[in-house]
Each structure stands twice: as structure tokens, then as C-alpha cells.
């Protein structure tokens, strides 16, 4: 009220937004989505060049770096790899990094720069290394307190780069398989180097710079000692290379935070500007990769279609979560006279809209970073954040965004082709039973690796006794835990103790969710690699058409509903119905 009376002509909007918080929240959402879209459009021509194996301004640097890499690797560096070699290279490279990290992490107390580091239990070390290796970054440990500086710097920053870039390399091979007909998928090490030098190094440098300028610390100093006013206690604030960690955490859709509180911690994410920057940086590469597909396959409509389908899901989930959080639940509204939405567990510097945007973007991509406490979300708000996990991160992670969505493209093309009486094909490539079989396997693997551990865990009373909330809430939490692991997301609700059972089961789920699926996807690429994409003929299924897009959207959502509806009924729906006392037939 005071604002409206104090200023003159330009004063209409300020009080309007202040008095209509629902509208101002929506305005913020629109601004976020617009900025995300703009940056994705700026980046996608560059990414499409990398996918098409064209030279960029950074390619000379790649060439020089790769010369050194070749010396280390020997003849394999120049080889054109088929599926088996490519996948084995990817696996052995990842597992080599994994084993080294495991050893270093497990014995970190014997290594220099111990700082505050503590001994990891075997299960925790396995879980942590696997989760960082699979681009998941579930953090069952307490960061940074439990880590030595050595681990923090050498192991984790390394894995934060290796995981997304190997995913990106796999997607380069995948695209190459469709695009060319030479029978091979390219060279993993070359693709990896290219992704690192041409995509990640420039972008992370830029992002780190922006974050440092916005006030995120980037230092090697020890803990900062601070004394709060009116307190005699000395407070230790851990510092470190936070800005550069944030940058690769978000750009690489990793999501593992420098601090345990992740992006809710003020030093990792100081304000609205960094929040917007971090939000944009976690969505930019997946979205730009989808758009790039239009350019890569010379079918602009196709790129727009992928973008559109994912965007529809994205916007729907954002709105579901936003309105759920904004309206809260009846018992909350009764507490105070004035109600401004469910602020419980959310940072006041972000408010509802900016909190849910970052969280939804985190589960829509495979990032999993959070800036608010998910356990305090309303049941439907939690369902919104959970949707991304159950649909296997529709926007996807680095590289996996392209491959995962292609699985749905192939699957939909199969159904749609049959429905119009054509043999299935995409972009002029006939789909054999192999491609359809593998894409079906990929699509069903995701629900299976969630449902199986879920079903097992819920049957074991000693495990379920770790959960402290109501039955419905626990079901949601458990589903979230395995959903997060299976989709390599890493986001967590928390609310229970991470015992060895969870550490190991999560690790197995993450490995399957990552490498089994990438393996199947590369198998499809190999099957494609002997056939050449020739573009669509007028008589074929138009995979860029609105009808195809609708069908694909329908398939993606329906797949999620069919697989998880019964669990959701006893989980979020149950909590929701209880909160709102929905008793129709008492």
C-alpha cells in the first residue's frame, strides 16, 4: 500500500504485482521460460555443428589437445569404432575413472589435504562414486564436511566433467549412426575431447565468471570463521571453488552440490540473479540439443517438435507445482490470517515461483539440484517435481536428452506407421525389428528399474521402519528415491536414513539406468549406421507434424501413467485426498 501512494505515474504495476502474488509468480515463470528459450535458441546452431561433425572456432584447439591424447592412447585414438568398441571404450573409460575415484575417496583420510574429511563406509563410497559417475549425484554423504579438499578438487570435479561429457559423446555417436551410412559410430575419445574442449570448457568458464561476479565464492581458503551478532559461538563457514563447482554442476546436469544444502545455501546461490543463471544453465544444453536435431537432420519442424513436446510437459509440470505450492493445503491456510502460499522449506529470497522453477527444471533435466526442501512440498507439488523422474527426465541430461527422446520418436513412429498402414520409418530410414525391439527395451527399462527395487524395499519391514512419516508420504519418498536413481537425476526428498541397502540398491539402479540404456541406444545407432537418412518423402509419416507430436506426447505421458498410477494412488494422491478431506461417499 505504501508503494502505491508514494510514487506517481509508473506506479500501477508495482502494487499490482504486490497485491496479486499469483500473477507476479506467473510473470516470473514466464520470464524464466522466455530467457531459457532465448538462450537455447542462441546456443543450438553451435551444438548442431558439433553434432554434424563440422568445424567450430574451437576445433583447432581440439585438434591440438587430441594430438597429445593420441600419444597417450596409441592407435585406438584414430580408429573408427563400431558399437562394441565404442561402448567398451565408454565403459572402460568410465569405470577406470570410477575405480580410481573409489580408491582415492575410500582412502582419503590417508591422503594429503584432509581438511574436514572423514572416513566413508564402503557402501557410501560405492554409492557416491557411482552416483557421480552416472551423472546422478545422489549425495548420501554430508558435503563438504565429510570430504577432504583433495577429494573435492581432484575426484569430484573430475567426475562432474567425465559423466556428462561421456553422455554427450554417446549422443554424438548416436546422431552419427542415424546420419551416416558408413557402418561405424566414430571414435569415443575424439568425441569426448570435442565435447570437453568445444562445449564444456568455454561454457563453464563463462558461467564461472558470471557467478563470481554475482557474488559466489571461488577460493582455496580454509573455513571462514564468523561470529554472529549476539552470539558467543564461532561459526565455521566452509568455502572453496564454489563458483566453478556450481557451473559444472548445472551445465553438466550433474546436480551434486558443493554444499549439502545444494543451491539453497546462500553462498552457492546468493539471489534471484544467480538462481536465474543457474536455472538457465541446467536447461540450456538439453534444450539446445533438442533444437539442434532440427538442424542436424535438416528438418526444422522436427527440432521444433521435440522442443515443443518437452516444453508442453515442462510448462504443465511447472504450473501444477506452482499452483499446488501457491494454494497450499487447507490445514496451512487456517494457521494464519494471511496466506501467501506454502513457504515452508523455501528460501525467502526465491519465493514460491523461483523455488519451484529451479526444482522442476532439475527433475525435468537429469540435474537434481534443489534450492528448497522438497519434503515440505504439498502432495501435488511433490507430484509435479516427481513427474520428471517418472518420465525419465523428459528434457534429459547432457546427450541423453537426445537419445532418450529418440527412443520415444522410434516407438511412436512404429505405432503411428502401423496406424496409417505404413512400415515404420524415420527420416527415410526403415525401422527394422531390431531398432523397435531395442527402443522398446529402453523405454520399459526405466519403469522396471524403479518398480523392482520399490517393490522389494516396501516388503521389508526393517527398511520401511527407517521412514518417519505417514504411509502415503513414505511411499512417495521411496518412489522418489528410486525414480531419482533410475533416471540418473540425484534429486532427493530425504526423510529417512541412508542405510547400506539404499547405498547399494541405488548404485545398481543408477548403473543400469545409465549404462544399460546408453548401451541399448548405441545398439540402435549401430543398426542405423548402415542405413542412410534420406529425409522424408511426402508419402511418409511426417515426424515433424503436429499429429505426430501429439501422439508422442500421449505416448510419453501414458507410459508414465500406466507404469506408476497404482503407486501414485497410494502415495501423493492419498496424501492429497487426506489433506483436502475428499470423502465423497462417507
Amino acid at each position: 500500500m505504501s508503494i502505491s501512494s508514494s510514487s506517481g505515474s509508473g506506479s500501477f504495476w508495482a502494487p499490482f504485482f504486490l497485491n496479486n502474488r499469483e500473477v507476479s509468480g506467473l510473470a516470473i515463470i514466464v520470464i524464466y521460460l522466455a530467457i531459457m528459450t532465448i538462450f537455447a535458441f542462441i546456443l543450438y546452431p553451435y551444438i548442431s555443428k558439433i553434432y554434424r561433425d563440422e568445424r567450430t572456432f574451437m576445433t583447432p584447439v581440439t585438434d591440438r589437445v587430441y594430438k597429445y591424447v593420441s600419444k597417450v592412447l596409441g592407435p585406438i585414438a584414430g580408429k573408427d569404432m563400431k558399437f562394441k568398441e565404442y561402448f567398451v571404450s565408454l565403459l572402460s573409460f568410465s569405470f577406470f575413472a570410477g575405480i580410481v575415484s573409489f580408491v582415492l575417496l575410500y582412502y582419503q583420510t590417508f591422503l594429503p589435504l584432509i581438511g574436514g574429511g572423514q572416513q566413508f563406509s564402503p557402501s557410501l563410497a560405492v554409492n557416491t562414486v557411482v552416483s557421480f559417475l552416472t551423472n546422478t549425484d545422489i549425495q548420501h554423504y554430508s558435503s563438504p564436511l565429510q570430504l577432504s579438499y583433495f577429494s573435492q578438487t581432484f575426484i569430484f570435479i573430475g567426475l562432474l566433467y567425465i559423466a556428462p561429457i561421456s553422455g554427450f559423446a554417446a549422443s554424438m555417436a548416436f546422431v552419427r549412426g542415424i546420419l551416416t551410412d558408413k557402418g561405424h559410430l566414430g571414435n569415443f575419445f575424439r568425441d569426448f575431447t570435442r565435447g570437453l574442449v568445444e562445449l564444456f570448457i568455454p561454457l563453464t568458464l563463462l558461467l564461472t565468471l558470471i557467478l563470481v561476479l554475482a557474488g559466489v565464492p571461488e577460493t582455496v581458503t580454509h573455513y571462514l570463521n564468523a561470529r554472529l551478532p549476539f552470539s558467543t559461538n564461532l561459526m565455521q563457514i566452509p568455502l572453496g571453488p564454489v563458483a566453478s563447482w556450481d557451473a559444472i554442476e548445472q551445465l553438466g546436469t550433474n546436480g551434486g552440490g558443493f554444499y549439502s544444502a545444494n543451491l539453497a545455501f546462500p553462498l552457492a546461490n546468493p539471489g534471484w540473479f544467480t538462481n536465474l543463471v543457474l536455472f538457465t544453465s541446467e536447461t540450456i544444453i538439453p534444450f539446445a540439443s533438442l533444437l539442434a536435431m532440427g538442424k542436424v537432420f535438416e528438418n526444422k519442424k522436427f527440432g521444433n517438435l521435440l522442443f515443443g513436446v518437452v516444453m508442453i510437459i515442462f510448462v504443465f509440470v511447472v504450473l501444477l507445482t506452482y499452483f499446488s505450492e501457491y494454494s497450499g493445503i487447507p490445514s496451512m491456510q487456517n494457521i494464519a490470517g494471511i496466506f501467501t502460499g506454502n513457504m515452508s522449506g523455501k528460501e525467502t529470497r526465491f519465493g514460491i515461483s523461483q523455488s519451484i522453477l529451479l526444482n522442476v527444471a532439475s527433475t525435468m533435466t537429469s540435474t537434481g539440484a534443489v534450492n528448497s526442501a522438497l519434503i515440505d512440498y504439498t502432495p501435488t507439488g511433490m507430484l509435479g517435481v516427481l513427474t520428471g523422474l517418472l518420465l525419465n527426465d523428459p528434457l534429459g541430461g547432457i546427450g541423453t536428452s537426445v537419445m532418450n527422446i529418440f527412443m520415444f520418436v522410434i516407438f511412436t513412429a512404429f505405432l503411428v506407421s502401423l496406424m496409417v498402414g505404413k512400415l515404420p520409418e524415420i527420416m527415410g530410414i526403415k525401422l527394422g525389428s531390431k531398432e523397435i525391439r531395442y527402443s522398446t527395451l529402453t523405454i520399459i527399462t526405466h519403469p522396471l528399474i524403479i518398480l523392482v527395487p520399490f517393490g522389494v524395499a516396501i516388503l521389508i519391514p526393517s527398511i520401511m521402519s527407517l521412514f518417519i512419516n505417514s504411509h502415503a508420504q513414505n511411499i512417495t519418498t521411496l518412489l522418489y528415491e528410486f525414480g531419482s536413481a533410475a533416471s540418473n537425476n540425484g534429486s532427493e526428498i530425504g526423510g529417512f536414513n541412508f542405510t547400506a541397502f539404499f547405498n547399494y540398491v541405488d548404485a545398481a539402479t543408477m548403473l543400469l539406468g545409465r549404462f544399460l540404456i546408453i548401451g541399448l541406444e548405441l545398439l540402435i545407432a549401430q543398426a542405423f549406421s548402415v542405413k542412410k537418412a534420406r529425409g522424408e518423402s511426402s508419402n511418409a509419416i511426417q515426424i515433424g507434424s503436429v499429429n505426430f507430436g501429439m501422439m508422442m506426447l500421449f505416448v510419453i505421458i501414458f507410459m508414465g501413467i500406466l507404469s506408476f498410477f497404482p503407486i501414485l494412488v497410494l502415495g501423493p494422491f492419498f496424501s492429497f485426498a487426506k489433506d483436502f478431506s475428499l470423502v465423497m461417499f462417507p
Partner: protein
Amino acid sequence: MNNYKEILKTTLIGFRPDFLYRNPILLITEISMVLSIFAILFNAAFQLTFSISYQEFYVAVVLLLFLTIFFANLGYAISEGQSRSIVDSLQKFRKESTANLITSEGTTVVLSSTLKKGDFVIVNRGEDIPMDGEVVEGNAYVSEANISGESRPVLKVLGDSVTGSTHLLTDTLKVRITSDPGETFIDKMIDLVKKSSRERTPNEIALTVLLSGFTLIFLMVVSVLYAESSYTGLVPNLIFLIVLFICLIPTTIGSLLTAIGIASVNRMSSFNVMAKSGRAVENAGDIDSIILDKTGTITMGDREAKEFYPASGISAEKFIRYCYASSINDQTREGMSIVKTCKGRLGDIDAQDFKDYEFIPFSAENKYSGITKGQDYVIKGSLRALENKFGIKDLSIEGICKQISSTGGTAIPVAAGGKFVGVIEMTDMLKPGIKERLELLHKMQIKTIMCTGDDEITAKQISSEAGIDEYVSNSSPEDKFNVVVNEKNKSRMVAMVGDGTNDAPALARADVGLAMNSGTPAAKDASNMIDLDNDPTKLIDIIFIGKQILITRGALTTFSFANDLSKYFVILPAVFSSFSFLSFLNVLDLTNPLLAITSALVFNTFIILVLIPMALKGVKFKPSSVSELLKRNIFVYGIGGLILPFIAIKLIYVALAFVGVGW
């Protein structure tokens, strides 16, 4: 009556697990049925409620599960029965007869089954042709009524193929046998029909994998539901969960999948087309371009000499005598027609002056035919061929040719003594109904390409009259092959019709090659379908059937999965009926849980029975563009599949309650 018994028998035999293993979905249904019987018998161990109404409910569930498998087997049995009756009718033709085998000492009478490939036989009037072969001498009318059902006798001339057990009506033929015993055309047809019911196409395999994958997911979903509800303190009723599982798995498409495949091959057979594989039928649905011959496909083919135009300075009678002379030994249809028309004009013609002339047969390379003696020629053929041969040019002849071409006729100039003596006009009418059929192809966005040996002007005229997209004029058989390769390079699926030996490479290269039964053995070998009626326009019907089979599968798959949503909304509220909070999910307001579950299962079971005719006949298919078809089918089978079960289950529920099922 026998037939019904047979179908019933196949249906019941189908319950044997060793017959079901090929169809995982039905096998799982049967296992579920056995499991539920087991659970009901030992109800205490499974903590099943066992009041009177529950007992009735359990019995109903077991019965409905039995019916689900029964109906699925029924669809299969009917389609099997159809193909068996086709085989039976084919087997009747395979009759033993005698043959006049030509040996070095003359002819001996042997049994037809002892004939081997490469033997020569003489077939006299009134005898049956003993084995598949090729005419090497003579011409005669043959009745093929027992194979094609066509009662009009077919004229067989030199080089035509004849089929074993067809009946010779006139004259005598010398035939070279082209197949060994057991490999005759009818033997092959029987094999094909039998095989097609067993062999699965890559598409069918992919679909089976997809369906099995989903079945696995649903198995997990239902198991998790069991675990989850016991966690929340609910004692889950096993039978409820079994019903949910059966309702979720794609029983509809799963049970009809095999029947659809067999039925499509049967449908082809009922069109008198023998497909060599189910795959060929599927390919047919995917055709982008079809290559058609002008003659015989688009036009009537039996071209008749209509008018004679003598060159200036040549009398009409003299010209007709030339025409007659050039064609007297010509066994092509054109030649025979010219002779006939000449006779019609002048009565019996004395051709003594040309008696010792040697006949030059028509060949695709020369493109002319006629007679010659030394340097003297009387030759008819294409204008260009004659011009090149004699190095002559005649503007007035060219004018006449153009004139004839522009009205759609074919001009055959005749040259004698080194100059043109006139032009024969051959009429070539469009086949009745061909325009409408080509129109349908247009609607399906299929490109039509016409190949003709005629000149540019005739080709253009005919193609614009018939509505053909592209034409290749002055084409030789090699050109046909080039057209196929060209289209294939544009990654199009190509279909073509052929009957000559020189069509064989193109037939083999095309995705769908339809050979005429009257064609040469080479053409028949290279093709993947054979038309017994020799009607090239059937290619269009074949495309229809191919599309129908794919659409039927796609539509039923989409329908099957779309149905699942409603079943969640019916069965889950019933399973969780003790949680009053969750009654908001009970959108259909089905207050009696047992009745609700039964209704869902009734729908799930009887939808199979309702869809059997559709699976056998194929879905209704209106030729239209791909995007229109997609829009329509998404609407009908996708959205329809979502909404229909809600309405149907509610109706079944109300009906069951009305007749007094009040558990």
C-alpha cells in the same frame, strides 16, 4: 457343420500350453487362470474373503478368464479354418494324369508325376496339361477355370506359361516342362498358404516384443501394488489383482495378432493372388510408387487394328495386302488382330507373292516385325525404328502418326520396298474403371509411373487421360529396371507388375513384384506375388490389403493400451474401497466393488469377441493421405479407446445390476 466342429476343436486344443507358448500374452492369461483356480481352492492360505457373494464372483472371474482364452483361440481357429479350406480346394487340383512324353523314339504315354524339368510333352485337345511348363510350339485355348475361376478360355501362344492340371480346349501344344514333381505351381501355392500361417514378419516380431515388454511392466506394477497395499495395512485380494493384471495386459491385440496375419494372406488368396510371404503383403501396404505397364493395365491391351491409312500414291487395297503380309506369321496380339481386320476388309487374301519371304519376329530391341527376302522388306513397327532402319523420313506419315497418337491410339507405320506405305491405327481403350482406381492411389499419395513402348505423344495422351503422374515413353524392359532403381534410390518402396522374362530383374528388385500367372516362369520366380487372374490392376487391391493389415495391428495396439486408463479408474477404487479418501478416483460411481471389477473383466473379454470380425476382415480403410488417416485413426482408436471403455463398463455394470447380480 464339419467346419464348426473343426473350429471348435482347434479352439480347445489351443488351451494346451505347448500351443500357447508362441503367444506370451495368452500363456500368461492361462497361467493367471490356473493360479486363480488354485487360490480359490486354497482360499484360506491366500486370505481370500469367502462369503457367498465372493464365491460367485470368483467363479465368474474364472469363467471370464476361460472365455478370454477361448475367444482368442476362436479368432485364430477361424482364420486357420479359412486357410485350411483354401489348401483343401487347391489340393483338389493336384490330380494325376497322363502325358505324352516326347522321347527320341517318338512319344510315350507316362504318368504326369514322372515328368521332370526339361522334358517335352505334347498336349492334345481335350487333355489336361500334365505339369507346369512353357509353350514351345503351337497356340491353343486353355481353360484355367479351376485355378483362377475365370471361365473365359485363355489363348496360349509361344512362350506363354501353362499351369499343370489346366484343361486344353482347342488344338495341340508342345510344352517344355519347367518344374519337377512336388514343385509345381499348385504345390507351391499350397506351401505358401500353409507357411504364411506360421511364419512371422519382422513387424509382427517387433510388435510381440513390444507387447511382451508392456506385459512385464504390468506384472511388476501389479506385484508392486500387492506389496504396497500390504504395507499400508490392507490385505489385498489376490483375485482382484489378477483381474487387474489381465485387464491391463494387451489381451486384445495379443490374442488377435496371429489371426490378423493369417487372415490377410487368406484375403489375398480370396482375391486370387498368391503372396509368397507375409512380408510381401506388409510391404505392399507401404508402397510409395507403382510402375504400371500401359498395355493391359491401363488400357485394354488386346489392341485392335481399327483403321488403315495408306500413304499417298498407294491404294487402300494394296496397303492392306502389305499389312496382311507383314503380320501373317506374327503371333503377337497386335499381329493377329491386324490379320483379322484385314480379312474383315478384303475377305480371304491371297498372299502367294510373299510365300517364300522369311518372317522377322518382333523383339524389344528391334521394335519392328515383318517379312524379308533378300533386300526386300515388308515391315511394321515403331516410327523411329523404321526411320532408322531404312534411313527414310516421310512428313505426311509422321503427321498421320501424330494425329493418331493425339487421340490415344497407337500408330504402326508400315514400310515396304524402302519407303513408307501407310499407317495402321490400333485402338487402345482405357480399361473401364481404371481412372477411378488411379484416383484412389492419388488419394493415398502413391505415385504412379506408366511405362510404355509407345512414343511420347501417345504416352502423354494416355497418362493425362488416365491420371498418371509420370510416364516413360519409348521404354524398353531395361528402362523399367532403371525406373525401379531410380525410385529405390529415392528410398521409395516400389511395386510393379510384369509377365515377361525381361521383366524379371525389375520384378526382383521391386519391393512388391506382381507376376501374372500367364507370365513366363522367370518372371514368376522373380516376383513375390502371383496373380492367377492375370489382372494387373489387382496391384491396387493388394496395396489395400497390405495397408489394412498394418492398420489393423496398429489400431488394435493403440486401442488396447488406451483402454487401460479406464480399467485403472474402475479397478483401483474397488481394490482400495476401504480407503474412503480415494473414492474421488471412482469417477464412474460404481459403488459395488465386486460388480465393478467383474464389469471391467467382462468388457475386457467380450471386446475380443467383438473385434474378431474386424481382425479377420481388416479395419475399414478409406483411401486418404497419410496425415488425414493418422488424424482419423488417432481419433477413432486412440481417443475412442480412451472413452469407449468408460461408457461400456458403466453400461455393463448397470446391466449386470439390472438383471439382479447384486453381490
